[in-house]
C-alpha cells in the first residue's frame, strides 16, 4: 500500500490512482498486441486465435510448425536474405555518409549549417509516400528501380538522418582541443580523425547505425514502389502474406523480428552506458 503524505485528501488519492491505472491501460494497449503474437506463433492449428488446448497449456497444442514453414518456403528465405543484404549495405552507406556529414556540420567554419542540416534531416519529416513517389520516377530514369543498388541507396537516405542526429549528439560533448592536440603532435587531420575522433564518437556512430538498420529492416513503402519481385524484403513478404496465404507463418516471422529488436535495444542501452562512462572519465 502506497504511503501518501499527510496533507493528501480524498481527491488527491483518487487522482493518483486514476493516473496510475490510465498509465497501465496505455502501456497494455501498446504492448499487448505485440506480446499476443508470441504464443500464437507456436499454434499447432493454422488459426490466428487461441485454441482451447493453448489456453489449457496443453503441450500438444504448441509446435514449431510455422517456424519450419519459414525455413521451407523459398520466398521467405529470399525475403530474409534480401532484408539483411539491403539493410546491411544501406546501414554501411548511411553510417559513413551520416558520420562525415555530422563531423562536417560540427565544424565552426561550416557555412549554411542550419539549411544543410534541415535538408539532410528532411527524409525523417517528409511523408514517406512522397519520398517513395519521387524516388520511383527519379530512379526509373537512372534504371535504379527494381535493383538492389536502388533500394540500398533509398534506404540509406532514410537512415542518414538518424546517424547524423546520434553522431551530432556525441560530437556536442567532444572537446575540440583533443583534435588540436592530435594535430599539434604531428598527426595529419585524417590520422587524428582515425585515432582520436572516431574512437570517441564510436558509441554515437554505432547507435546511429543501429537505427539506420532498423529503419531499413522494417521499411515497406519504398520497397513497394522500388523493389522488383527479386528484391522482396521481410516486411514486403509479410504484407503479401497477410493477403495471400493467411497462416501463422507471419506470426513466427514477427516473433523473430521482436527478438531481433530486443537484442538491438539491449545493445543500444549497453552502448549508452559505455559512452557515459567514457565521458565521465573526460570530466
Amino acid at each position, binding site marked *: 500500500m502506497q504511503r501518501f503524505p499527510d496533507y493528501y485528501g480524498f481527491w488527491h488519492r483518487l487522482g493518483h490512482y486514476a493516473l496510475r491505472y490510465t498509465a497501465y491501460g496505455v502501456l497494455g494497449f501498446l504492448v499487448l498486441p505485440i506480446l499476443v503474437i508470441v504464443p500464437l506463433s507456436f499454434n499447432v492449428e493454422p488459426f490466428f486465435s487461441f485454441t482451447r488446448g493453448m489456453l489449457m497449456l496443453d503441450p500438444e497444442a504448441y509446435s514449431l510448425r510455422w517456424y519450419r514453414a519459414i525455413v521451407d518456403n523459398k520466398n521467405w528465405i529470399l525475403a530474409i536474405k534480401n532484408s539483411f543484404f539491403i539493410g546491411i549495405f544501406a546501414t554501411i552507406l548511411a553510417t559513413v555518409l551520416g558520420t562525415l556529414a555530422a563531423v562536417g556540420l560540427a565544424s565552426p567554419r561550416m557555412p549554411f549549417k542550419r539549411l544543410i542540416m534541415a535538408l539532410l534531416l528532411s527524409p525523417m519529416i517528409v511523408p514517406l509516400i512522397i519520398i517513395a513517389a519521387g524516388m520511383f520516377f527519379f530512379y526509373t530514369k537512372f534504371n535504379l528501380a527494381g535493383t538492389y543498388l536502388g533500394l540500398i541507396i533509398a534506404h540509406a537516405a532514410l537512415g542518414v538522418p538518424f546517424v547524423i542526429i546520434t553522431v551530432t549528439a556525441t560530437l556536442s560533448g567532444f572537446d575540440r582541443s*583533443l583534435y*588540436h*592536440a*592530435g*594535430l*599539434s603532435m*604531428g*598527426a595529419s587531420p585524417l590520422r587524428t580523425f582515425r585515432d582520436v575522433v572516431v574512437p570517441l564518437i564510436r558509441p554515437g556512430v554505432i547507435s546511429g547505425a543501429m537505427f539506420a538498420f532498423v529503419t531499413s529492416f522494417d521499411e515497406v513503402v519504398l520497397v513497394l514502389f522500388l523493389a522488383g519481385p527479386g528484391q522482396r524484403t521481410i516486411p514486403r513478404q509479410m504484407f503479401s502474406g497477410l493477403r495471400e496465404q493467411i497462416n501463422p507463418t507471419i506470426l513466427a516471422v514477427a516473433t523473430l523480428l521482436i527478438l531481433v529488436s530486443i537484442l538491438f535495444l539491449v545493445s543500444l542501452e549497453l552502448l549508452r552506458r559505455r559512452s557515459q562512462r567514457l565521458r565521465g*572519465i*573526460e570530466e
Partner: protein
Amino acid sequence: MAADRVDGYLRFRNVKKSYDQKTLVVKDFNLELAKGEFLTLLGPSGSGKTTVLMMMAGFESVTSGDILLDGNPITRTAPYKRNIGMVFQNYALFPHMSIAENLAYPLKVRKKSKAEIAERVQRYLDLIELGDFGNRTPGQLSGGQRQRVALARALIFGPSLVLMDEPLGALDKKLREQMQLEISRLHQKLGFTVIYVTHDQGEALTMSDRIAVFDRGVVQQCAAPDVLYEQPANAFVADFIGENNFLPGVVTRREGDWVRVRISGGGEIEARCADCGDVGSDCLISVRPEKLFIEEAGHDYDNRFGALLKTRLYVGDFIRYFFELDDGTEVVVKVLNDHAAPELSMSEKSLLLSRRRDCFAFARK
C-alpha cells in the same frame, strides 16, 4: 645565459587577426623571442591571448602580418607540420588511451622504432615522477598528474617551441604553485622555448624570463618581471601588475625624464615620466602601497603630501592603512608589521612620504 641566445628565433611581425572582417581582435602584434626563452603573454580574459597562440599553432589563420620561426615564415605551413608542442588548459589527454599511449602518440606518428618509443616514454614518465602510472588511463589521475602528463606529451617529441594556454587554470592554488616549479624545472633542464599564456600575474612574475603584457589586442609592455613591476610603461601595466595607488594631477614642470605634478588632492609630487604629456597636461601618478611611508622623523624623502586616515586593516605580516586625500582619492599604504608600525588614530591628518624614483607619471586619457 642571455648572452648565448640567438635573438629573433621566433618573430611576430605586424600580426593582425579579425574573426569577423570588421573588428581586430589582435592589432599589430610584434614580438621577438630568443631560443630557449620563457616568454609569458599576460593579459585579462578576452584580450586575445588564445588567439595569438592559435595563430602560432596554425589552428587559426593570420589575417595579416608574418610569423617567422628561425627566419622562415610558418604561416603557410600546415599545423601538423609545424613541430610545435602544445599544452591545453583542460589537458586534452586522449581519454581512450593509457598514459603511456598518450605519451607514445607523437612518437608513433613520427614512425620511431618500438624500442625507442618505449625507452623515451619511460624516461619522460620518470621525468614527471609518474614512472609507475603508464598503464593507467587519464581518468584515473588527479588534475595535477594529468597536467604533468600533458606537459610531458607536449615535450616528448622535442618540439622547437612549446605553447601553453593557461595550463594551470583548472588547478587549485597549492597545486598551481607546485606545477609552476615543475614547469620551471623542466624548462631549465630541457631548454625548450616557451610561450606561456596566463591571466595570473603571480604565475607570470615567478616563471618568466620576459612578460608581454597584452591588452585589447596590443602588447602594452614587454620586459623582464622586475622591470615590469618597477618601471611600468603605462597606466594599464601599472594597474594590472601588482597593486598601485593612482593620484590624478596636472604636469607643472618637466625636465628630461622627471616631472613635477600638482595633484588634485593637494600638494606637489616629483615623479619619473613614463608616458606623460607636456606641462599643463592631465596625468596620473602611480605609487605602490609598499613605497609609501607614514611620516617618520629623520628620513629624507622627495615627496610629501597630507592625507586623512580612514581605516586600518590588520593582515598579520603587514598592516594596510587606507588614507583619503582632500579630493576623495583613496591611497593605500602597506607597512610591515614590526615595532616601527605607527600607532595612528582615526581621522588624524598624517603626512605621506615617498621617493621620487618610486613615483611614475602616466598620461591620463
